[in-house]
């Protein structure tokens, strides 16, 4: 009975009268006590539990009635305003309150929702608990939408847009007014599939349109009145403003792209539409190094599709133009002075790098352009070129110009690594820094093989003549070359050269030890270097000479010694590389002369007849030196720079090698002496080697020819390598892979590649496809 009684009290009809006042208070945002709040929970719970069948729908209906009633009142309050902005204001005020309550009112009705939904789909009651999906909330929002919002949303929206427009003109207002309209759109959507659809199609669309119209009107005017440079500042500022405005007024929730869409629209009307005009300013700005403005332009253009490309092109054009102009302006000094040349190149590089850093924040795309353009400058041939002969069968030599850059870089390295006024002046750190600079420029050099060849020649010279300034630096340089990706076989050979020098030093001490007590004094007189032909030799370097007896006698002893130490080896003497010190006694005094072996061979011819005159013809018979070599040697003795009295005199006026004839007579200058501070010295030392040694007349030409020969072989080798791997390859793909393989040595010309492909086809390494002449097939 008690239970029945209690059950009776828990019917909807019993409970609702106590619930309704609280519900109304909540809707009106009036204070509700803790007890009232909790009672509401309890009442909902009781009705749902005890009046399971009829209770919940009844509560729902009653709630709906109250909500609709409340909304009706709100509607009448809002709609009394005829003025658009007053309407908006009133709407927002009502909406603000109502929307807040949407979060509270559903809470006590959780149980109700569980019951109602439980009937529909009892399998998943939990899911319905989440606030967003709440039935009561949906009821509230749907009712609001139907009763108020859908009727006046167009009016609200246009009011809101007007406010935004006013803000663009500088007015301030209560931001909540616009935000409220947006919230209404987002939250009042009845479309469950795509909740933002209505928002997007109305509010967002209107917002974007408004922005576009606004700037369509104003941007052009601003540009016309203020010029491009000011316009860029304006556009940049407006873009930033619009972005932060959009973050305020547009929906930013997950999955909503409104801000991005707005930015895109703004970029289009503010930047893309004026792209041409803005980009037109780019080249002059680069020229004048207006980094601030360029940075601004970069940030604007980077927002547009493909806006950067014209800027990249402008930068490239500037670097190439400016770089070449500078090089040509300084052509006179830099073509003769490797140091100046390299410094000029580095200066250019640093200038361009600074520009890219300051104007474009070292953006990778601009760095690539800098590299590309700098490469053009470095490899340009208009200032000076290196003639590389191309031997064509029977047709004779043709030349193809190449930049002299690698040769000059190698010369500069030599100046830093050799004992020179330059290397003495610099500290070790300076030298290191400058060598690294060379490596930096080298990175941009297309034909690194030329550098390698010259560098090796210089190194050979330094090691043979023992003129390195710092051995440690020399060996470091080898490793640095390895690090920058020079071909391993080249670097290995350089490393081997250093090893050989060490091995030779050991060999030399052993030799001296063995001949210590030899009465001929051979141990003191000679110093041997026996080097690995594979690492050192260049084909052109052996020049035959008949040695004077004084020298010739030592050779068998050395050979004998070497035979004991090693087996299976043969020795070839390279007198072009050897040198020594001789004592020259004449009427004036005794002088120690550092000379090449060829100079010795010539001078020793006078030992039997010190005061006689010897003809060119007889000197040639005595030394058996090749013509060109003998002439060069004689000239070095006749005209050694910077000394007043020469070692040798000729009877005719000899200015160049062509002035020497078979009958020209030469004699040793008995008046030769060293002069210091205007006084004749009786003793002294003089180095007559200078730059003479190790650069034969023909070796330079042969060097270049050798470079070409090597290139041909490398191209063939690389093509075969690619064909072996690919079996079938198109012409275009082959060219690309070839350049990739060879790029750390040289850039093969199209012609060279074509010739080598033909050669390989002729020699049956590969063939063309029968149907497609651009497809090659490997033949094993």
């Amino acid at each position, binding site marked *: 009975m008690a239970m029945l009684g209690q059950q009776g009290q828990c019917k909807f009809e019993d409970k609702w009268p106590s619930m309704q006042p609280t519900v109304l208070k909540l809707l009106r945002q009036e204070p509700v006590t803790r007890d009232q709040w909790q009672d509401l929970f309890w009442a909902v719970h009781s009705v749902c539990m005890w009046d399971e069948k009829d209770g919940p729908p009844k509560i729902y209906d009653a709630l709906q009635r109250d909500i609709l009633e409340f909304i009706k009142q709100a509607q009448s309050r809002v709609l009394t305003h005829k003025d658009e902005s007053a309407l908006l204001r009133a709407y927002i005020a009502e909406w603000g309150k109502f929307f807040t309550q949407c979060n509270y009112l559903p809470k006590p009705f959780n149980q109700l929702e569980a019951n109602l939904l439980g009937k529909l789909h009892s399998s998943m009651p939990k899911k319905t608990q989440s606030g967003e999906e709440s039935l009561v909330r949906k009821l509230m929002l749907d009712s609001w939408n139907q009763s108020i919002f859908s009727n006046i949303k167009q009016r609200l929206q246009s009011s809101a847009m007007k406010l935004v427009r006013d803000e663009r003109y500088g007015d301030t207002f209560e931001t909540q007014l616009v935000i409220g309209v947006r919230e209404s759109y987002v939250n009042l959507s009845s479309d469950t599939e795509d909740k933002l659809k209505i928002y997007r199609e109305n509010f967002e669309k209107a917002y974007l349109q408004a922005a576009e119209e606004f700037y369509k009107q104003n941007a052009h005017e601003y540009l016309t009145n203020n010029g491009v440079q000011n316009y860029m500042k304006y556009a940049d500022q407006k873009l930033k403003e619009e972005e932060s405005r959009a973050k305020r007024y547009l929906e930013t929730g997950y999955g909503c792209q409104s801000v991005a869409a707005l930015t895109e629209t703004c970029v289009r009307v503010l930047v893309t539409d004026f792209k041409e005009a803005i980009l037109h300013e780019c080249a002059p700005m680069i020229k004048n190094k207006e980094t601030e403005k360029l940075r601004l332009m970069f940030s604007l253009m980077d927002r547009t599709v493909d806006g950067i490309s014209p800027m990249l092109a402008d930068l490239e054009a500037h670097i190439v133009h400016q770089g070449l102009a500078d090089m040509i302006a300084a052509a006179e000094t830099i073509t003769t002075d490797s140091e100046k040349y390299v410094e000029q190149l580095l200066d250019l590089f640093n200038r361009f790098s600074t520009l890219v850093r300051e104007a474009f924040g070292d953006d990778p795309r601009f760095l690539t352009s800098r590299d590309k353009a700098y490469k053009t400058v470095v490899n340009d041939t208009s200032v000076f070129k290196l003639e590389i002969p191309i031997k064509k069968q029977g047709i004779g030599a043709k030349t193809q110009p190449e930049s002299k850059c690698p040769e000059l870089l190698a010369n500069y390295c030599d100046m830093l690594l050799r004992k020179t006024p330059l290397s003495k002046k610099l500290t070790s750190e300076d030298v290191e820094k400058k060598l690294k600079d060379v490596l930096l420029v080298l990175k941009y050099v297309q034909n690194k093989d030329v550098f390698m060849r010259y560098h090796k020649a210089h190194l050979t010279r330094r090691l043979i003549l023992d003129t390195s300034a710092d051995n440690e630096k020399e060996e470091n340089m080898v490793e640095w070359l390895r690090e920058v990706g020079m071909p391993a076989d080249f670097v290995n050979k350089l490393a*081997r050269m250093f090893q050989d020098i060490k091995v030779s030093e050991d060999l030399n001490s052993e030799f001296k030890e063995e001949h210590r007590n030899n009465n001929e004094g051979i141990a003191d007189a000679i110093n041997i270097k026996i080097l*690995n032909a594979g690492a050192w030799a260049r084909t052109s370097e052996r020049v035959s000479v008949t040695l004077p007896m004084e020298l010739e006698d030592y050779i068998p002893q050395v050979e004998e010694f070497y035979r004991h130490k090693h087996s299976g080896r043969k020795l070839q003497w390279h007198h072009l590389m050897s040198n*020594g010190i001789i004592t020259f006694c004449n009427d004036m005094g005794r002088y120690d002369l550092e000379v090449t072996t060829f100079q010795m061979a010539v001078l020793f011819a006078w030992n039997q007849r010190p005061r006689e005159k010897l003809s060119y013809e007889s000197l040639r018979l005595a030394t058996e030196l090749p013509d060109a070599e003998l002439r060069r040697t004689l000239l070095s003795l006749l005209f050694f720079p910077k000394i007043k009295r020469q070692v040798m005199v000729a009877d005719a006026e000899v200015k160049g090698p062509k002035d020497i004839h078979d009958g020209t007579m030469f004699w040793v200058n008995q008046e030769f002496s060293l002069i210091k501070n205007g006084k004749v010295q009786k003793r002294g030392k003089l180095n007559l080697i200078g730059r003479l040694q190790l650069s034969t007349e023909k070796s330079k030409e042969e060097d270049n020819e050798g470079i070409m020969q090597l290139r041909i072989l490398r191209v063939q080798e690389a093509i075969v390598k690619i064909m072996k791997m690919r079996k079938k390859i198109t012409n275009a793909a082959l060219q690309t892979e070839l350049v990739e393989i060879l790029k750390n040595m040289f850039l093969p010309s199209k012609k060279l590649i074509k010739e080598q492909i033909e050669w390989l086809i002729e020699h049956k390494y590969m063939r063309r496809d029968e149907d497609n002449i651009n497809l090659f097939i490997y033949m094993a």
Partner: protein
Amino acid sequence: MAEEMDVDREADKETSSKPEKMFTLKKWNLVAMWSWDVECDTCAICRVQVMDACLRCQSENKQDDCVVVWGDCNHSFHNCCMSLWVKQNNRCPLCQQEWVVQRIGK
């Protein structure tokens, strides 16, 4: 001539007396290149020039120890290459004669 030279050296040692020769040698730095005394520059096994280390030694950075070996047939190869070769086939790869080591380079 030989006599003269001896005299010359005597004189050179005694710096007080004037040497007879106008030019006398004080120091000679002479340079030679050595290479293996082979008939064929390339090792037929690894196809690398015998003056360079064989491929195996190049990759292991043992360039200095890579010497040449000659057989009785006078053909020559990298010693490293040949010692691997004979494990499979004890004949000279060039002439098919039985491989007998004549000498190893040093």
